[in-house]
Structure formats: C-alpha cells, structure tokens
C-alpha cells in the first residue's frame, strides 16, 4: 500500500459485471442502501456509492452500471468504462451470473486485462444449482488465477468467503494473468474453460420457454401485450380507486377532518387557520394538502409502482421493447425507447434518466420529448382522473387521447426534422423470472420513499405559495397580465394563471387547484391537456438540464410549450365547434 492510499480514509471496491447479473442487489446487501434492481439491462444507468464494513474494515463501494465490454455504446456504459479506465480503486469485485457463466466471462476477461486485484462473485448460485448448472468454482479460480466465489446476493451466502479473501486482495495478490488479446481468442478460451468447469444437466423446455416465443412474435405477442398492459392499467386503477374510496375518503372524512377541526377549530389568527385548514380560495395545508399528497396521489403512485415492479421483475419489458421496435422506428426510436416512456408514466424524472440506454443524442432527445408529451406522470394522471370522475368517461379519455396524439405527432415531426438515422435495437433479453415478493416489495418501498421525500414537500410548498400569491395581490396582477392568452386561446378563466405558474412546482397540485374555479368538464379537459404539456415540472427540468445541458433543455421546453398551445387550443376549438 502506498502512502497516498493509506491517507485516504477508506479503501475502495468497485462492483462491475454484465447488466442484470445482480450487482444492485449485492450493493444493497453490502451497504444497506436500497438500490432498485429489475430483470432487464439498463436499470442502473449511473454509478452509486456507499460504504460497507467487511472483515472489520470500512470500504467505499461503487456500483457501476452493467456493461458487456470495456468499449461503451451508450451513456450508461460510458459511466462504467470511465470508472474502470481511471482505475482509482483498490479491488475489482466482478459479478457474474452463475446461470450464464459462459457469456458473462467475456467482460470478466476484459476487466482482468486492467491488471487490478480482482475477485469474481458467482451470483445466483442457488438458482443455478436448482436449474442443474454445476460450476467447479475451485477449478475456475485456478484457471483464471483469481478467487471465484459462489454467492447469493439475496441471502448473503458467500459473504464470509469474500471477507476471507480480502486480505490477499488488498495485499495486491490476486491480480489476474493477462487474458487472450483478441475477442475471438477470448471466446475460444471461454469455450474451453466452461467445458472444463461447468456441467449442465439437461433441462426440459418448460412453459416459460414456450411462452418466450409467443411473447415476441407479433402475431401472438401484440394481443398478449394488449392483455398484459390492460391488466396493468386495471390493476393500477383498481388499486388506486379502491384505496381512495375505501381507505382514504372514509379515514379523511370520518376521522381526520373532525380531528383537525377539534384541534385547530378555535385557532387565531384567522389567516393561519385558513392556511392550515383551508376555506375560501385556500386548500388548507393540513386538510386538502395532506389529502392530495398522502391520499389521492399516493394511492395511485403505489398502485403504479406495484404494477411496474411486477412487469420489470418478470422480465417482460425487454420483450415488450422487441414488439414495439417496429412502431417506434416511425418516430425515430428503436424498441428500447419503450423504457423511458414507460417509466415516465410513473414520474418523468426516472424516465428522463432511463434514456441513457439510448445510443445517440438524437434518440435521447426524441425519447425525452416522448416521455414528456405522450402521457402525464402518475400523480398528475391520478388528479385528472379524480377531477373528471364525476363526469362522463368521454372527458377523461379525451385528455389522454389528445395527449397521446400530440406526443405521436411531435415524434413523427422530430423524426423528420432532426438529422440522423434511427439506431437499431440491440439488446439482450433476460430469461423469464418469477418475481421474488420480498425484492418486489422492497423496490416498491424505495420508490414510495423517494415519492414521500421529494414530492410531498413540493405539494405542500405549492399550496403555501398559492396562499401567498393570493394574499399579496400577485395573483390579481398576473391574471390581468395573462388574460389574453388564457381566455382567448384556451378559453379558460384568467385566474387559472395561478395554477399554470404552480404547475412548475408540482403538476398534481396544479390539477387539484383547478377544483375551486368551478370549470365545466370541457374546460377541465383543455386545462389538463395544457398543464400536462406546457412545461416539465421543476424536478424534471433539473434532470433535463443535467442530462442534456441548457440548449437542448431550452429546445425541448420550446417544443412542449408549443405542443401545449396547439393541443390546448385544439380542444378549445373542438369545444366551440361541438359545444361540449
């Protein structure tokens, strides 16, 4: 150990490996920090750091996005390659999927060429055994010249063995010998190697294998996708509505409101009482505010992420991307563009980040636009559905229909206008997997936690901001200023400018804020369409800036704003023409 590394507080470990081998689960296991894992490549697109105590020492641990080789083909892989190329770490912990030893060894050999102390974890050892895959770990270690340890991330099996190997690794032993240089020599070496260390008992092609074919051929796959996605939609709606109707409303009306009133009923001064409990134009921080944040929106967000988690963990999503490939090519994306769009149905922030799996700037920009335009995020969708629930379903469908059409039109347009070719789909399809309840639930918990920490304060802040704007007369001033565009172009009362401004903070709150304006359902459609499109919310805006820089963010915002006026004005025109 050099003086310099000794000065650093901690030694560092780096977790590498192919996509979808369970690095995130190992990271969670070792650091106690939650990390979302799913059964498809590209779940982790940026590196994460944490610390872990192994063999009585403190280490920093970096979880690197999965890659197939040291040559990057997209932004997510670039992150991995940069970290490895810089070499600012002490030990390389390379994770290999024991179920797919052969194809995982290629990247392992490339990593071995870095000449760093290295250990291989043969993850999913239990699953491999159950499926009749036997690996002679001792022989593999001998052949590769580095320790190869059976490991099970979900149970922690193999952790003691790793701790036992650490001193040798830190002493700079266990540096792998240089692997064969050319790719074909590497594969030849791997072929020989797996013959000697691995025995696979014959497996009968089961139902999953049959289902595999059916899920990706258009003839059977498209109807199947329709069934699965509709089931997902009804699951979300069913759970969302069910929670609101049977849990949130009764609790709120029956217990919470009376409790609030008895607690603060005699509160003075009056403005504080209005701020907390609502009344007049105010929604009430503790009344409606809490109901929106922790009741209505939370119910839908929970339902959405449960459904998404199940779809992710089975491995269905990459199959869906194969089916969507043909269609997405028409708007300048290949099939994997499905991922950002689908994640964006929940929240735009992870959707935007997920676009890192796409190869070119052109594709990422189109993906950002699609993620933002095709449909609102779940919190906003929830409020739109809630607000329009008392009218005919026609209005709700209009909102989502108009948004989908606007998004598609923008996609066709971008594909025509932006120079460059659409890249081709090239992605590994993971095997089917039955979701493990514990990991699906812990992922749900992580996502709900981030909703609570990030969204809830913003929702409450939005309500306070509206109160302040009302009190100071700012609202009156702004509504005079924006009277023309709002009423002439969109047919909305000018006072709704407050809602438009707040939409930048939180899109769900701004829809909820339409309530006191007693709009007719047609106006709600226009307002919902406009508010969904006009601008990304503050959180999304920040992520866009980080991912694409100022110029592209400005371009994308210009696009969404124009889309909002065109789509919003069209619904107004339709209202005028057909009188609804």
């Amino acid at each position, binding site marked *: 150990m050099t003086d310099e590394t000794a000065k650093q507080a901690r030694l560092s470990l780096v977790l590498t490996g192919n996509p979808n081998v369970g690095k995130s689960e190992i990271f969670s296991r070792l650091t106690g920090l939650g990390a979302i894992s799913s059964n498809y490549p590209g779940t982790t697109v940026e590196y994460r750091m944490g610390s872990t105590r192994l063999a009585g020492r403190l280490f920093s641990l970096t979880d690197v996005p999965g890659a*197939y*080789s040291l*040559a990057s*083909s997209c932004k997510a892989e670039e992150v991995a390659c940069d970290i490895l190329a810089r070499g600012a770490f002490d030990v390389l912990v390379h994770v290999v999927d024991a179920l*797919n030893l*052969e*194809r995982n060894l*290629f*990247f392992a050999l*490339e990593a071995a060429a870095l000449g760093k102390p290295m250990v291989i974890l043969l993850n999913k050892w239990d699953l491999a055994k159950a499926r009749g895959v036997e690996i002679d770990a001792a022989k593999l270690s001998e052949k590769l010249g580095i320790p190869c340890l059976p490991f099970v991330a979900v149970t922690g099996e193999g952790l003691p063995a790793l701790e036992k190997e650490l001193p040798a690794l830190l002493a700079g032993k266990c540096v792998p010998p240089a692997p064969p240089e050319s*790719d*074909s020599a590497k*594969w030849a070496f791997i072929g020989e190697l797996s013959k000697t260390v691995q025995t696979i008992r014959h497996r009968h092609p089961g139902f999953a294998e049959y289902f*595999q*074919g059916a899920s*990706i*051929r*258009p003839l059977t796959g498209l109807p199947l996708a329709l069934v699965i996605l509709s089931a997902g939609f009804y699951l979300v709606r069913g759970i969302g509505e069910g929670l609101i109707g049977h849990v949130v409303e009764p609790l709120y009306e029956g217990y919470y409101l009376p409790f609030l009133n008895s607690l603060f009923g005699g509160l003075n001064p009056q403005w504080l009482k209005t701020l907390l409990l609502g009344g007049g134009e105010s929604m009430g921080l503790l009344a409606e505010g809490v109901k929106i944040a922790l009741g209505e929106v939370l119910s839908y967000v929970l339902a959405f992420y449960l459904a998404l988690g199940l779809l992710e963990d089975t491995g269905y999503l*990459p199959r869906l*991307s*194969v089916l969507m*490939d*043909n269609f997405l090519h028409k708007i300048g994306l*290949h*099939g994997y563009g499905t991922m950002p769009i689908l994640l964006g149905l929940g929240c735009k922030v992870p959707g935007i980040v997920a676009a890192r799996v796409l190869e070119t700037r052109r594709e990422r920009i189109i993906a950002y636009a699609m993620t933002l335009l095709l449909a609102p995020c779940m919190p906003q969708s929830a409020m739109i559905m809630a607000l329009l629930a008392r009218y005919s379903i026609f209005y709700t469908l209009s909102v989502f229909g108009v948004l989908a059409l606007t998004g598609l039109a923008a996609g066709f347009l971008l594909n025509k206008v932006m120079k460059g070719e659409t*890249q*081709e*789909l*090239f*992605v*590994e*399809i*993971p*095997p089917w997997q039955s979701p493990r309840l514990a990991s699906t639930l812990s992922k749900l918990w992580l996502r709900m936690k981030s909703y609570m920490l990030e969204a809830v304060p913003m929702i409450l802040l939005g309500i306070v901001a509206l109160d302040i704007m009302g009190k100071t007369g700012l609202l009156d001033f702004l509504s005079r200023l924006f009277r023309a565009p709002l009423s002439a172009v969109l047919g909305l009362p000018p006072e709704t400018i407050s809602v438009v401004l707040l939409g930048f903070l939180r899109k769900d709150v701004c829809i909820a804020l339409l309530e006191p304006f007693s709009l007719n359902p047609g106006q709600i459609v226009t307002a919902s369409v406009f508010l969904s499109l006009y601008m990304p919310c503050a959180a999304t805006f920040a992520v866009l800036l980080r991912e694409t820089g100022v110029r592209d963010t400005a371009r994308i915002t210009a696009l969404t704003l124009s889309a909002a006026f065109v789509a919003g004005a069209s619904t107004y025109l339709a209202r005028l023409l057909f009188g609804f």
Partner: protein
Amino acid sequence: MPDTTTLASLENGTGARVTRIEGGAAALKRFSAMGLMPGCQVFKEAGDSHGPVVVQVCGARLAIGRGMASKIIVERGK
C-alpha cells in the same frame, strides 16, 4: 456450395453459423462482446418480414434490429 443467407432472412427455428458481419469497428465490438462473431453458432427464434429478429447465441437471447440483422451473413445447417 455453402448455403448462405442473412440473419434477417434465415427461417425461424433454424440454426446457422455466422460467416461474416458487415459493419464498423464499434458495431463489431458490440457484437463480439455478446459472443456474436464469425464462426459462432446462432439459433433464430423469431422475426418476420419486418421488425427485429431474436436469436440465441452463447446461451444468451438477443434482439437485433432488422437492419443490423441483414448485415450478419450466416451459413445454414450445422
């Protein structure tokens, strides 16, 4: 006379051996990292006259865009 075709037009449910791949260095590297390179055995699972193809190679299942697949030359049979 070897019976050659492209991965795009290979019949579903047949195996073949890759003889040549046309493409830039970056694309070739991407392929070879997945084990897809001249000499390797592939098994075509799915893919029709348009849209991506799905093949098994080195124990992995890959979805490959149609354009790419038509640049991968294969030899039918064992």
